C-alpha cells in the first residue's frame, strides 16, 4: 500500500500538467488532490497502530544503503496531516485561483510533487531516504514560493528560502554521516541512546539543520519572505509540512541523540529565542499573512523547546501542539487568503467590519484563533495546558528558562491572536466604512469550515485524540510519555490558573496594541542582509570564474603543469636508484637515440613535409622499442597508424602552406621551462612507480583466462576483444564519431572558402598581440 500510494503521487504529478491543458487549471487541482485524499484516508485507518509496516528496496548492495519506508503511529498521524491538509489545500486553491489564472496546472503539479516529498520524509525508514526527501522538499518548496516567477520579490524570497534550507541540508548530510557511523545503522526505528563526542557532533548538526528548515532564529528570515507565495502554498507549507520537517526530524532522532551533551542546551537556545522573537514579530506587522507567518515562527520555537526539554510530559505536549497547530494554522492562512481574494487587501488597518460581511471566515477565525491562543473549547487548550504542566514538572534553572519562554510566549500568542482578530473583524469605527467584499467562493469556504470545525471536534473527541492520535506517536519518541493524557477540564489546579492568567494578560496586551495602531510593518533587515550575502557570493563566484577561466589556452596548460609539479613532489623520495639500469641492449640504445633526435628535430623543423616525416620517424622508433619489450601487437598497430598519419599529413594538408610559421616568441623562456617540467614529472613518476612495485602482474591468470574463457592464444587480443570488450566497443564509437566529425569538417561550401591564397598573410605579430593581451587582462 505504501508503494502504491507513493507511486500514485508520482504518476499523477507527472500527468497533471497535460491534464491541465485539456481540462483546465482548476480541474487539475482536484486531480492533484486525489492521491493526497486517498493517502489521508488510508493513513487514517492506520492511526494509533502499534505495529510498524515497513517496505524497502536495497539501493546499493554492501553500502547499507536502503530506500525504505515505514508507517507506524507517528507516520500515520503525520500522513493524515500532510495529505489531509494537502487535499483540502487543493480544493481551496481551486477557489483561490480565478478561472483565467495562468500556470495553475504547473502549480498543481508542483504542489503534488511537494506533497510527495513531504510524505516520503515522514515515512522514511532510514536516514538516507529521509535526507533525499528532505532535499526534495527544499527544491519543490523553492518552486512553490517562487511560483509568481515574474515577480522579483517572489523570486528573491524563493532564492533566500532555497539557500537557507539547502545549506541546512548539507549540514544534515554531515550530521547523518556522523550519526550512522556512531549508531552503526541508518534505521530510524528502534534507536538506542547514543553518547560520546561523535554523537554529540551529530546532534549539533541535526539540530542546526532542523533549525534552518523549521525557521528558528536566526534562520527564520526565509519564512516571512516565503509569504510572497500564493496563499494556498502558505497554508500548506507553513502549517503541516515544510516547517514541521525540522521538528519531525528532532522528534525522530531524539531517542538516539537526546542524551548527548549539546542536544538540550542548543535546542532550548534556538527554541526559546524563537518563541519570543517570533511572537514579537507577529505583534509588529500589519499584514495579516505576515502576522500568521511570524506566529508560525513562534510556534515552531515552542515545539523545538518542548522536544529539547526531553521529559515525557514535554514530548507529549509537543506532539499535541504539533497536531493542533497544523490544523488551526492552515485554517487561519486559508481565511486570510479568502479575505485577500475578496477584499483585495490583507492590511489590518484597511480591513473593517468583516465579521458581518464574511460570517464564515469570521467564525472559522474565532475557532482557529481560540485554538491558537489555547482557549477552551478548542483542541489547542488541552495542548497548551500540557505544555504548562510540562513546565511545572521541571525544576531549577530549566524550569525558569523554559517557563519564561513557554509562558511568556503564550501571553504574546494570545496577544497577537486578539490583535489579528480585532484588526480584521472588529466593526468599522467612526470615519471608516466597512470594507467592500466580493461574493463568497465555496471552494475556499469549504476547507476553511472543515479545518475550523476540526479544531473544535478535536476537543469534543479528546479521548480519541489522546488514545489514537497523540499518545501512540508520542510514545515512539519517548516511552515515558505513555502515562499522560489530554485533559478536557483540569479543575482549579495550578496549570489552569496559570492558563487563565496567560489568557487575561494576552487579551489586555492584544487589545492595547490593537488600539495603538501601527501604520506599517518593520523593514525585514535580516532578510535583506541574507540577500546581500547571497548577492555577494554570486559576485564573488563571477570574479573567481573570470580570474581562473580567463580563456588563454597556453595559460591553462601552464596551470596544469604547475599542478603536476606540485603533485609529483612527494614522489621524489620514493625513487630507488638501485632499480634503474642503463639499457637492455645496444639496439634499444640506438632506437632511443633515433627517437630523441627525431623528436627534437620535430620542434625545430619548419617544412611541413619534413615535420611529418620526422614525426613518423619518432613513431617507427617507438615501434622498435615496443618490439624489444615483447609487444608485437603494439608494433603492428603503431606501424599502421604511423603510416596513415604521415600520409594524412601529406595528403590532407596538401593545400596548406608549405612552411610552418616560426615559433612564437613571447614568454619563450617560460614555455621552455614548463615543457622541461613536464618531462621531469614524467621521469620522476616512472622512476617512482618502478621503485615501488608491490605484487606481481597477473600474467598467469590472464594467460589461463585467455585460453579457457576467451578461446584465444594471443593474450593481448583476448583482453581487448573479450575481457575489456565494452571498453573496445567505446573505442570503436570514438573512432566512428571522429570519422563523422572529419567528414563534416572537410565539407566546405564554396562561398565559405577564403578567396585567394594569401587572403590572410601570416603575420607573426598576431602571436604577440594575443599573448600580450593575456597579460594585460
Amino acid at each position, binding site marked *: 500500500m505504501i508503494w502504491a500510494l507513493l507511486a500514485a503521487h508520482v504518476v499523477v504529478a507527472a500527468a497533471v500538467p497535460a491534464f491541465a491543458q485539456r481540462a483546465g487549471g482548476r480541474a487539475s487541482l482536484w486531480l492533484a488532490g486525489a492521491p493526497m485524499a486517498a493517502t489521508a484516508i488510508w493513513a487514517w485507518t492506520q492511526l494509533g497502530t502499534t505495529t510498524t509496516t515497513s517496505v524497502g528496496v536495497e539501493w546499493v548492495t554492501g553500502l547499507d544503503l536502503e530506500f525504505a519506508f515505514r508507517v507506524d503511529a507517528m507516520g500515520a498521524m503525520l500522513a493524515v496531516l500532510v495529505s489531509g491538509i494537502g487535499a483540502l489545500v487543493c480544493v481551496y486553491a481551486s477557489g483561490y485561483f480565478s478561472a483565467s489564472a495562468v500556470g495553475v496546472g504547473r502549480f498543481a503539479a508542483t504542489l503534488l510533487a511537494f506533497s510527495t516529498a513531504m510524505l516520503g520524509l515522514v515515512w522514511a525508514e532510514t536516514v538516507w531516504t529521509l535526507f533525499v526527501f528532505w532535499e526534495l522538499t527544499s527544491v519543490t518548496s523553492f518552486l512553490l514560493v517562487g511560483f509568481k516567477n515574474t515577480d522579483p520579490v517572489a523570486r528573491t524570497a524563493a532564492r533566500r528560502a532555497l539557500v537557507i534550507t539547502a545549506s541546512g541540508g548539507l549540514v544534515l548530510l554531515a550530521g547523518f554521516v556522523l550519526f550512522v557511523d556512531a549508531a552503526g545503522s541508518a534505521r530510524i526505528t528502534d534507536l538506542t541512546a547514543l553518547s560520546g563526542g561523535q554523537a554529540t557532533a551529530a546532534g549539533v548538526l541535526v539540530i542546526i539543520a532542523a533549525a534552518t528548515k523549521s525557521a528558528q532564529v536566526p534562520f527564520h528570515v526565509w519564512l516571512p519572505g516565503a509569504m510572497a507565495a500564493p496563499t494556498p502554498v502558505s497554508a500548506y507549507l507553513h502549517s503541516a509540512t515544510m516547517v514541521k520537517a525540522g521538528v519531525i526530524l528532532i522528534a525522530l532522532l531524539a531517542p538516539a541523540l537526546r542524551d548527548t551533551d549539546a542536544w538540550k542546551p542548543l535546542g532550548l537556545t534556538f527554541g526559546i529565542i524563537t518563541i519570543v522573537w517570533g511572537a514579537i514579530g507577529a505583534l509588529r506587522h500589519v499584514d495579516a499573512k505576515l502576522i500568521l507567518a511570524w506566529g508560525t515562527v513562534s510556534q515552531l520555537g515552542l515545539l523545538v523547546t518542548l522536544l529539547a526539554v526531553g521529559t515525557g510530559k514535554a514530548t507529549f505536549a509537543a506532539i499535541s501542539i504539533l497536531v493542533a497547530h497544523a490544523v488551526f494554522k492552515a485554517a487561519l492562512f486559508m481565511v486570510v487568503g479568502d479575505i485577500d481574494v475578496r477584499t483585495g487587501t490583507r492590511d489590518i488597518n484597511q480591513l473593517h467590519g468583516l465579521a458581518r460581511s464574511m460570517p464564515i471566515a469570521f467564525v472559522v477565525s474565532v475557532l482557529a484563533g481560540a485554538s491558537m491562543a489555547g482557549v477552551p473549547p478548542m483542541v489547542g487548550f488541552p495542548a497548551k495546558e500540557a505544555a504548562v504542566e510540562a513546565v511545572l514538572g521541571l525544576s531549577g534553572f530549566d524550569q525558569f528558562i523554559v517557563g519564561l519562554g513557554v509562558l511568556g510566549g503564550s501571553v504574546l500568542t494570545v496577544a497577537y491572536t486578539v490583535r489579528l482578530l480585532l484588526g480584521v473583524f472588529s466593526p468599522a469605527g467612526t470615519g471608516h466604512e466597512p470594507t467592500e467584499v466580493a461574493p463568497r467562493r465555496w471552494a475556499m469556504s469549504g476547507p476553511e469550515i472543515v479545518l475550523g470545525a476540526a479544531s473544535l471536534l478535536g476537543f469534543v473527541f479528546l479521548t480519541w485524540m489522546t488514545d489514537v492520535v497523540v499518545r501512540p506517536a508520542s510514545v515512539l519518541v519517548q516511552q515515558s510519555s505513555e502515562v499522560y493524557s489530554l485533559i478536557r477540564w483540569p479543575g482549579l489546579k495550578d496549570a489552569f490558573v496559570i492558563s487563565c492568567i496567560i489568557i487575561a494578560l494576552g487579551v489586555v496586551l492584544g487589545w492595547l496594541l490593537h488600539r495603538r495602531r501601527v501604520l506599517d510593518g518593520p523593514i525585514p533587515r535580516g532578510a535583506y542582509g541574507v540577500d546581500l550575502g547571497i548577492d555577494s557570493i554570486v559576485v564573488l563566484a563571477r570574479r573567481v570564474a573570470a580570474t581562473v577561466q580567463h580563456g588563454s589556452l597556453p595559460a591553462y596548460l601552464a596551470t596544469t603543469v604547475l599542478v603536476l609539479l606540485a603533485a609529483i613532489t612527494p614522489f621524489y623520495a620514493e625513487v630507488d636508484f638501485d632499480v634503474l639500469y642503463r639499457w637492455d641492449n645496444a639496439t634499444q640504445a640506438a632506437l632511443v637515440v633515433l627517437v630523441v633526435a627525431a623528436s627534437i628535430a*620535430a620542434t625545430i623543423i619548419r617544412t611541413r613535409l619534413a615535420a611529418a616525416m620526422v614525426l613518423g620517424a619518432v613513431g617507427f622508433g617507438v615501434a622498435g622499442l615496443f618490439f624489444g619489450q615483447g609487444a608485437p601487437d603494439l608494433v603492428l598497430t603503431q606501424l599502421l597508424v604511423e603510416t596513415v598519419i604521415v600520409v594524412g599529413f601529406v595528403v590532407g594538408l596538401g593545400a596548406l602552406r608549405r612552411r610552418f610559421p616560426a615559433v612564437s616568441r613571447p614568454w619563450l623562456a617560460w614555455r621552455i621551462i614548463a615543457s622541461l617540467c613536464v618531462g621531469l614529472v614524467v621521469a620522476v613518476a616512472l622512476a617512482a612507480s618502478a621503485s615501488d612495485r608491490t605484487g606481481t602482474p597477473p600474467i598467469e591468470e590472464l594467460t589461463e583466462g585467455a585460453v579457457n574463457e576467451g578461446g584465444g592464444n594471443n593474450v593481448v587480443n583476448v583482453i581487448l576483444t573479450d575481457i575489456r570488450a565494452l571498453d573496445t566497443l567505446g573505442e570503436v564509437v570514438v573512432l566512428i564519431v571522429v570519422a563523422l566529425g572529419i567528414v563534416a*569538417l572537410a565539407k566546405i561550401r564554396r562561398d565559405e572558402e577564403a578567396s585567394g591564397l594569401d587572403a590572410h598573410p601570416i603575420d607573426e605579430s598576431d602571436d604577440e598581440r594575443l599573448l600580450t593581451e593575456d597579460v594585460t587582462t
Partner: protein
Amino acid sequence: MTVLFAFAAALLFATGTWMLLQRRLSRILIGVGLVGHGSNLLLLTSGGPGGSAPIIGTGDPADFSDPLPQALALTSIVITFGVTAFLLALGYRSWRMTRDDMVENDVEDRLIARQRDRDELVEETRLAEREQRDDEGLE
C-alpha cells in the same frame, strides 16, 4: 627499469608540451603526436620489464611480458590516432576558410571574464538610478 626508457618518455613529453604551447594548430598537431608517443611508452614501461610476446604456444608463459599494459597502450595508440586525424581535419578546414591556423583564445571564456566588468557597470548604473529616484522623491 632502464634509464633510457624513462629518458625517452620524458623527452617526448617535454618536446610535445613545448609544441602544445604554440599558437599554431599545425604545431599543436605535432605536439599531440609527440605526447601520444610519450604516453604509450610510459604505459608500456610502467608495466615492468619486458619479456617474450604473450602469445600462447610461442614460448614459456613464465617469460611473458605483462599483457595488460600492452592492451592499454593499444587503446591509447588508437585514440591518439583519432585525435590526430580530427585535428588534421580541423587544421584543413581552418586553412581553407581563413588561410590561417591560429588558435584563438576561448571566446566564451573571454566573455565570462568581461562579464565581471559588466556586472560592476550594471551595479553602478542601478545605484545612480536609485539616487536619482530618491532625489525626485524629495522634490
